[in-house]
């Protein structure tokens, strides 16, 4: 895979506070990379550094093979879409799309061609004569994407573009962005705090915390093999169950309860004995008849039932620790009911209780 955007040893400091430190990142050509993390983790800051809106303290940034560390934003070959749309409110949609090109002195025919193409792709032709105030949120964001599109660049940067939209529009536009990526095949770097956006859009997800990329991998890998407790807890809703206990060779014991780890693939052999945390996704816990097929089973009592429509989330206890499980909404569940739950520890994740790192 050819690299499109490459960040080498990037450090950004505001005075003595280092927001990003020694960060490295390679994004392949045509890749859709999502920067995901809680607010304040440095994901938007990183994107602003890539765009050239923030001057970095140390390191280098390459875009399309060119060192752009000290280039102006307009010369970096990027287009950017913002959370607040950032349209120029006193200009019509058409002018919003063309203003940057006009200022750069591009010939009129070329501008018209590009505006026509962008508005065709985004289906905003009927809106060209309107002003942003006369558009809905979704239409505004489409115009904002169009403004990036007319620049005819290799790399698109999205800074939480859907966060100002309501849930319905958000999922509609999410699909549109995906469709856009499949059609244009540009490199896209997308910042969000919404894990569903990240999981659905990304080729790879970079999960960030305190300015450090915790894990950079495909959505599937991030979901199923989180590298540490933070990633495991951040991805997935309802969140992963964490059981505190002790790892002893191939058993995980919580007080008197022993869970055989069976085929669990340790990161390296010979872990030995240590305090550990077993993480199990709620949907990997089976109940009733299905539980009987699982390598590990346990009788338990339901405490709370949350029907979600498509499925049901139940709360119970394993060795005194709270556990949620997710099952089909067809299974009748009631608080106080005795049930059998079961799961395959090999599908779970084991972490070192001290460092939080996957073992």
């Amino acid at each position, binding site marked *: 895979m050819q690299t499109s955007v490459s960040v080498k040893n990037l450090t950004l400091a505001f005075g003595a506070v280092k927001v990003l430190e020694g960060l490295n990142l390679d994004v392949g050509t045509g890749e859709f990379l999502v920067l995901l993390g809680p607010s304040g983790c440095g994901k938007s800051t990183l994107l*602003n550094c890539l765009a050239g809106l923030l001057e970095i303290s140390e390191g280098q940034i390459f875009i399309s093979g060119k060192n752009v560390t000290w280039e102006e934003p*307009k010369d970096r070959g990027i287009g*950017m879409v913002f*959370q607040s749309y950032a349209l*120029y*409110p006193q200009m019509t949609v058409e002018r919003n799309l063309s203003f940057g090109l006009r*200022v750069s002195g591009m010939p009129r025919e070329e501008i018209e061609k590009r505006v026509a193409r962008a508005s065709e792709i985004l289906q905003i032709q009927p809106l060209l004569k309107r002003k942003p105030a006369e558009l809905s949120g979704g239409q505004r964001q489409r115009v904002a994407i169009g*403004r990036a599109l007319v620049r005819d660049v290799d790399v698109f940067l999205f800074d939480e573009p859907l966060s100002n939209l309501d849930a319905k529009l958000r999922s509609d536009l999410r699909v549109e962005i995906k469709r856009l990526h499949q059609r244009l095949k540009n490199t896209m770097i997308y910042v969000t705090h919404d894990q569903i956006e990240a999981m659905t859009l990304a080729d790879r997800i970079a999960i960030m915390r305190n300015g450090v990329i915790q894990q950079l991998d495909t959505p599937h890998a991030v979901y199923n093999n989180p590298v540490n407790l933070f990633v495991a807890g951040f991805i997935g809703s309802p969140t992963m169950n964490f059981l505190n206990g002790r790892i002893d060779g191939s058993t995980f014991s919580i007080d008197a309860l022993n869970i055989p780890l069976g085929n669990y693939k340790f990161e390296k052999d010979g872990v030995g004995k240590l305090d550990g945390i077993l993480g199990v996704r709620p949907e990997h816990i089976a109940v009733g008849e299905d539980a009987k097929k699982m390598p590990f089973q346990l009788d338990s009592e339901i405490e709370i039932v949350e029907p979600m429509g498509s499925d049901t989330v139940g709360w119970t206890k394993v060795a005194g620790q709270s556990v949620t499980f997710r099952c089909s909404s067809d299974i009748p569940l009631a608080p106080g009911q005795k049930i059998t739950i079961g799961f395959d520890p090999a599908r779970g994740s084991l972490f070192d209780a001290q460092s939080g790192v996957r073992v």
Partner: protein
Amino acid sequence: MTDVATTAIAVEAPARRKRRIPYAAIIGTLPMIIVSFSVFFVAIIFVVIWSFTNSGMFPGFNFVGLAQYTRLWSTSLWQVAVNNIWFFGVMSLCVNLVFGFLLAVFMDQNIKHESVFRTIFLYPFSMSLVVTGLAWQWILDPNLGLQESIRNLGWTDFALAPLVHRETAIYGLVVAGIWQGSGVTMAIMLAGLRGVDQEVWKAAKIDGIPTWRTYLFIVIPMMRGALGTVLLLQLTGIVRTFDLVYAMTSGGPGIATQMPAMYVISFITVRLNVGQGMAAATMLLLPIALILIIRAIVTTVQARRRGINA
């Protein structure tokens, strides 16, 4: 027919239920309403009424039609005053706007000690115009002020005493007016600038739009509210220009810096011709009333247009 009637009622009903009379708000604002009604509204009406009478020392009701107005416009004193207010108004308004905006832009560059600068720039506005006028009169006085102190430094033929010459006195007034007014223009403009979404700036940077063009074509159009406020504030200030001129030149030398507001006061108090003073006052009211009416029309038209589109 009955169908139409019932649907009309059905549509109207919820709107009517919503419209409750806000008693508490009315009672709370009643004193202010009474004061502003009696002081402003009634007084303005009487001013207009008396402008059609031949009232002398005391107001009376002996109507003489437009006689006061024809006399007003044939008086050279009034003509000079009107010319002066136009010159002073246009000059100080334009320079104030430009200068205030540039100051605001300067303040918006993430400078250190911003609050110190803001206080300094705003300070003139907090002072009475009489004090401002007096201070500038001293500064521009040929024997006390800048001219004398620079001559004392050795530049003996330095000349800066605009107030003593008929042709230049008005420029002295303009300078004082700008010194007094540009601070508040800056403050309002700065608030307008701060109200512009930072992401718009970022988007303009990505688009490669130079800073000055971003200000001119994107930011200033976004600051319409601030601009309107500044304009209205400045215009009302200009029309009633009195204290500054009174303190600095008292309308002199000769009648070179007479202003309409001074004309009004002098006819009511000194020349004991209330009717003439009222006619001049009505002429002063006219442009402001016109601006307010135009503004009201524009906003309602805009609101209606927006309503249709929505």
